[in-house]
């Protein structure tokens, strides 16, 4: 195998990881601040993708679509928080799971009602089309590089937001002691809505960015949601740093596993068997990694309340 191919796969893994980070960061923030497990986070990802595709198709501008995805997902998140999630803070996790499961049904079927069952397609904006040459002679899709860059910018932005701003201070306070910040006069209700909308906007952004690489369709959010769960289980619930490292780990391990395992197995068996077995094992690889990490650290790599 050539080193160019290897570099390409590593970058694909990074791009996948960065996208997972956008999902996982929102989930982990929402859990950290509100103690709520939000299964409908994948629906917000889908909302972002549909909003971007629809607006881009209508206006012809990907960038307007991107703005629309952020706005639509944030608005959907805020509405969901105010109407449903708010009633779940004092409930057990079972009720949270069920209510947000119900939200998935509502979002998915509602979207199908509005947009139909056929997938939408979203074009890569002209500025980002084409490929760039990497050292070593590899060619790599510019758009994917842009996603990696966008994800890293968001990661830095989130870090600054949480460590440097007033809102971030309140988020940190909310994570350590909910009653206390209420007693200090912080309006918890609006803090919750803001955090939820922020998480939703990140999910919507991820959906929109990925929408240009894959088709935009109902049900696109849940497989990503479950991977984001794996990410925050590995990284430690409530930790943004854990989400970033977990996301990159999952993205790279998954991509490299699918690429390398079948080739590795050809050393032991015939090519057709190796391809089958390699693909099967690769599809389970990140879960196996998760199991190992949990066996050593049941609360994840960067547990907030270790």
């Amino acid at each position, binding site marked *: 195998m050539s080193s160019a191919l290897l570099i390409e796969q590593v970058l694909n893994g990074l791009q996948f990881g960065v996208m997972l980070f956008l999902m996982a960061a929102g989930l982990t923030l929402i859990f950290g601040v509100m103690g709520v*497990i939000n299964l409908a986070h994948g629906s917000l990802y889908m909302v972002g993708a549909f909003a971007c595709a629809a607006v881009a198709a209508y206006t012809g501008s990907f960038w307007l679509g991107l703005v629309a995805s952020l706005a639509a997902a944030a608005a959907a998140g805020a509405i969901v928080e105010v109407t449903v999630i708010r009633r779940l803070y004092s409930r057990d996790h079972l009720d949270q799971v069920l209510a947000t499961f119900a939200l998935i049904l509502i979002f998915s079927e509602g979207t199908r009602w509005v947009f139909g069952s056929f997938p939408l397609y979203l074009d890569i904006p002209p500025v980002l089309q084409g490929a760039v040459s990497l050292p070593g002679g590899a060619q790599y899709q510019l758009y994917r590089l842009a996603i990696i860059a966008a994800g890293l910018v968001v990661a830095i932005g989130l870090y600054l937001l949480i460590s440097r701003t007033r809102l971030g201070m309140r988020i940190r306070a909310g994570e350590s002691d909910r009653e206390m910040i209420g007693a200090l006069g912080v309006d918890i209700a609006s803090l919750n809505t803001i955090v939820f909308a922020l998480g939703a906007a990140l999910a919507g952004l991820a959906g929109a960015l990925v929408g240009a690489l894959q088709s935009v369709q109902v049900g696109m959010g849940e497989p990503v949601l479950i991977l984001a769960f794996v990410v925050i289980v590995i990284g430690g619930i409530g930790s943004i740093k854990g989400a970033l490292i977990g996301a990159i780990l999952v993205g790279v391990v998954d991509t490299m596993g699918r690429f390398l395992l079948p080739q590795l197995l050809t050393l032991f068996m015939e090519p057709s068997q190796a391809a089958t077995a390699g693909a*099967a094992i690769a599809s389970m690889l990140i879960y196996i990694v998760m199991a190992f990490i949990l066996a050593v650290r049941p609360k994840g790599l960067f547990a907030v309340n270790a």
Partner: protein
Amino acid sequence: MANREKLINTALALLLPALALAAYGMGEPFYVTLATRIAILALAAAGLNLALGLGGLVSFGHAAFFGIGGYMAGIFATHAFNQTPLFTWPIEIAATDQMPVIWLVSAGVAALVALPIGLISLRTSGVYFIMITLAFAQMIYYFAISWPAYGGEDGLSITMRNGFPGVNTLDPLNYFLIAYGLLLLVLFIFTRIRDSRFGAALQAARQNEVRVASIGIRPLRIRLAAFVISAMITAVAGALFADLNRFVGPSMLSWNMSGELIVLIILGGTGRLFGPVAGAILFVLFEFALGGLTEHWQLFLGLILLGVVLFVRGGLIGLLAGKVHHG
């Protein structure tokens, strides 16, 4: 109130065979199949109810065990139909199309899978447990999709429904009676386990883990046993489900399926003996009635479910019979 629950349970227990018999008498096999579907889903949920209702273990991965049972039925049926051995190494083992054997194998395989999953996920609790069980189920789902030997993404059709000694399983009423009989048996086992020493420890661990540990009972072991038993029951239901549909595919392993099993329990009443039965009746009837009205019935199911979670706590049985009573 406890007596009222018994009354409701009896009514629910009689409702299903009454529905099946009436439909059969009127020459409506579709409704017999509907009743069978209810019985099988109730059976699957009864298995989960042991872990979730009694033990408080919110497993979001029970579709894994449901699907394992389904694939066992499919794999056995395929090999039996083609008269090929199940496997040839290290020894050759022939396939059978006899349901009792398939059920035992399903339960056994599910136990072997549930044991490591339980060992890892039960070391955590709360949200972690939910997400980890979901992740492991997803792992098995992707394995089924990427492993082409038994249909991969397309699933596996069961040409001939598996057999039962002395019974023609192709007759819908016979098949209903098999599923219903198994459901009653499992509900009986459920009451015995619930009222046993093990059940006491399991329910106590749900209410107060530290208390249970500080009298010298290890919650992990109790929960692991409950998780494994629960998986075995759900797997048997999965085998029945595949035989009912004469098809098994990755969708039986999907996260939606895990979610639906939880929904059944909540609709009916968490931890209640007949909660899964009430929930399965409600769910299948919603699906049937709403599905007849609009192709977007899942939207309304979602709204109803949301309403139940937010406003009707305790499910149908809780609504009708009041709170749980312990001796």
